């Protein structure tokens, strides 16, 4: 569906761009030996553990692997919810 709209808007993703995107993801998984399922399960558990200590905004939480050269870094951006207003 997205590609249909992109086509209508004349913003078709080239096959080379698509190859690059797919490779980017597959190389992250190859290099870290983490399947997409394992990565998701790790994220879920991280959120669960952190939630035991502080209130977090689960919808705004971002946990992802970023690549710098051949190095992979796990980046987590976890906004904390403000505590209940004091009386």
């Amino acid at each position: 569906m997205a590609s249909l709209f992109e086509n209508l808007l004349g913003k078709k993703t080239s096959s080379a761009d698509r190859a690059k995107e797919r490779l980017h993801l597959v190389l992250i998984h190859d290099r870290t030996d983490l399947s997409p399922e394992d990565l998701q399960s790790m994220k879920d558990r991280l959120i669960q553990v952190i939630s035991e200590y502080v209130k977090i905004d689960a919808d705004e939480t971002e946990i992802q692997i970023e690549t710098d050269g051949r190095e992979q870094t796990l980046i987590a951006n976890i906004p904390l919810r403000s505590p209940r207003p004091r009386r």
Partner: protein
Amino acid sequence: MNGKVVTVTSGKGGVGKTTTTANLGIALASLGHQVVCIDSDIGLRNLDVVMGLENRIVYDLVDAVEGRCRLTQAMIRDKRFQTLFLIPAAQTRDKTAIAPSDMVRICDILRGEVDWIIIDSPAGIERGFRNALAPADEVLVITNPEVAAVRDADRIIGLVEAEEKGPAKLIINRINPAMVKHGDMLSAEDVVELLAVPLIGIVPEDEAVLISTNHGRPVVLDEKSEAGHAFMNLAKRLRGEEVPWMELDHKDGFFNRLGKFISGGD
């Protein structure tokens, strides 16, 4: 002499390891160096046909390792260059006929005799690859601008690093500038960004490669071929020369921009 051992590898088969090895050998010999090319793909011998030396084989690498001949007897002299030799693979044995320590021993002897020892690695990450990697001073990883080849190259680059033989240097083979321009092929820039290792060669897709291989005459000997020029440039960079990146897409200067991207990157 203190020869340098260069291993040419790729992970995926069919991306151009043997063609590159043959052309590097010829190019370095034509630049005045003493060179030995070793086909380490035991059981699937093919560097001999690419170099056009298949009718001269008497002894092979396994004969030399197992002591059935002297090392010099397994070295076939090239037809065109007096300073170029091929040590062919055995055709009737398999990879287990040789151990990494055998390759180290053979290469240590050759280091004293020649300037360059170029090893054509088999595809894969098994024993044959380990044999080819063990004696390497430098590793060249070849890929094509295509998803499967790039993925396998990344795996190999990681293994080379793990063996402390890195960083591997990258050769992008069979790039088609027209397809890159139309957005239908990964650009050299894309591949370098994904694999994040230094680039040493870009070879354009060129019919002359197949035609020259049909004749057993590596394309680097064909002065009109763009791929031939690219292999010569690769050889020059390998020996430390700074060679500008070839202008393959004459209209929009793509490779010029690539050159700037690479040199401006660090």
